[in-house]
């Protein structure tokens, strides 16, 4: 079984961005430029937050939109990324209905979640957790 980050209860989120900073820290940097997870208010912090991270679709539209197969479906749900094949067209970013693919301005390529769960360790309020991707039967006509 493969894993993904799931948002357990977004109403517990305080908008601290600890998860966002954690994701870029995987590369030993402080900041957000390499983060595959994003937190933003839903129109003013008093209304709460939205936590956006790849949900590991069983039949990922982002991968389907990739012309060079740099982004490929992962067995069991989600995607794997081969930057060497990526031409930086940005199709995948548009294809994800969650807006879960961020853009790396430096490399000109998408930032793709590796489902490592590093961010989860720094969420102080149990908003996100690493869990197994459940079998969802994709609708194949």
């Amino acid at each position, binding site marked *: 079984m493969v894993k993904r980050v799931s948002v357990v209860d977004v109403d517990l989120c*305080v*908008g*601290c*961005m*600890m998860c966002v*900073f954690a994701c*870029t*820290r995987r*590369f*030993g*940097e*402080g*900041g*957000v*430029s*390499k983060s595959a997870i*994003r*937190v*933003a*208010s839903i*129109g*003013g*912090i*008093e209304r*709460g937050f939205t936590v956006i991270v790849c949900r590991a679709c069983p039949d990922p539209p982002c991968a389907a939109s990739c012309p060079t197969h740099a982004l490929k479906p992962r067995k069991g749900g989600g995607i794997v990324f081969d930057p060497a094949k990526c031409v930086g067209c940005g199709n995948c970013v548009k294809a994800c209905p969650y807006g879960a693919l961020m853009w790396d*301005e430096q490399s000109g390529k998408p930032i793709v979640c590796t489902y490592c769960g590093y961010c989860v360790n*720094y969420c*102080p*309020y149990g908003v996100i957790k690493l869990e197994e991707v459940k079998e969802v039967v994709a609708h194949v006509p």
Partner: protein
Amino acid sequence: MFPRDPLPRVLYIDLSSKKYWVEERKELFEEFIGGTGVAINLLREEVPRGADPLSPENAIVLAVGPFNALYPMASKTVAMFKSPLTGNLGESHAGGRSAIAIRLAGYGAIVVKGASDIPVWVSVHGSKVYFRDARALWGVRSTHTVGRVLREVEGGHGFRTIMRIGRAGEKLVRYACVVVDTFRHFGRLGLGAVFGSKKLKALVVVGKGSVPVADKAGYRRVYDDLYKRIMGTPATKKYHELGTAENVLPLNELGALPTMNLKASRFERAEEISGERLAERYLGRRVSCAHCPVACIHLAVLREPYEHEPYFYKTTFVSYDYEPIYACGAMLGIGSAEGLLKVLDAIETYGLDAMSTGVALAWMTEAYEKGLVTEKETIMKPTWGDYASYLKAIEYVVEQPNEFYAALAKGIEHAAKVYGGADFALAYGGNEMPGYHTGPATHLGFALGARHSHLDSAGYSYDQKMVGKKVSVEEVVTYLLEEERWRQVLTSLVLCLFARGVYTPQVVVEAFKPLGWELSENDLREIGKRIHLLKLKYKLDEGFSFDQLRFPKRIFETPSPHGALDPAFMEQALKLYRSRVEEDLKSLEAAQRE
């Protein structure tokens, strides 16, 4: 400093010429770290001596430091400017997303100079700066509305800070604040009026970058250690659970909660406006500054029915903290949570400093009681506890319909010069007093601290530790000086002061190492001392004098937990403090000459 760290980049924005440029100030940051240390130097460079704070000669310096974006709880930005309230050093700190956005836009400081001919807002998107026409936003009543508009038209959602002023800033109320993101503020000393005088309605900064370090593995190790410490300290729990409002009841119990213009130090209705009561009945959400796990920001929900429309409710979120509760609750005798929240909401809407506003209205109420002013001046009838009439008064402070309110909008030190009542005008160096009547140290701190703030040296905390014990002049002065100097280091990094228990000198030394920056505890303390002296020197150059320092008579009339304060003790402490810093200033000047 790690060579690829963008920290030394200073962004200059000239509102007069609508130009901007970047300068590399590596030596400045290496010598003074960032934040407060760098800001005081930039202020001295930019603002000519004797400049009018509301003229284009004044400058706004916003500075962050090396720990912002790298370590948790390094969430603050330091603003420095010449204060239109005191006519001297203006320094105020704010969190929200401000520090992260500035640092990740690739800057260590932003200097805004000159003044625009028409209202503008400025937006900084990484390396690009845009001057945008804000004529349509000028005059908009609520800071909330301005925030809403800018949220829609500016990009960078989730990675930006939106600093803006309200009507109070436009009308140059000398204690107008700058609202940062939502519910955070550059509150004290009137930065909002400086924005207003420059016709700067808002400053938006978007930052999405990152900061490289010299030792990646070491950085992650130090980070994890800090994270563990933060999550393990009782202070984190306290600030997260009830927040700073937790202090209302203990301070009241102690007899240290200034009430009705400090005619009393206990408020009989404190329970009603306590952190406990607010949390149980009104708390709607807790939120955090960026990169801080504590989430101390408490938002109350105010649900009010519409008069003409059954089952329609207006739901307002109001942020509360200890200081606003003191100034707009106890000081005004407002013992109803709902009334207090309405007052705080009005203050937020207009963009005023809650502390100065509350203290100003308290002074006005007593001046009215004593017959120094009449309803001809006040228009409304000042009555302790009557929040509805205070709501009117707040509007008058902003709109200044007569000479009295025009004077009150300049602060109570000024108003008391015109109308009398200096003995009960609770201000230090022109800045309205914070909410602690804990004993001698807190008042000495207000008087002697460089920004006349409780955060300069936290005398209130010293007083509370010493209740029942004998306090010596020597000890209290040593404490105040050492504390204020170490805090210059913390606010140069720039840490939230709630993190001061975690970031001990040893911890700070360790945290510098992965950044390729070797500083010993002694180095840090020396830098802290120099920053403090530079601030003092600025103040003296701008006309501050120890001889003119005064303790409002009122503080000697109302007993504190240390009993009635002794004027002779306070004078001795002042003298000793003065001789110490004057000696230090002499050796600083001698060193500079060499």
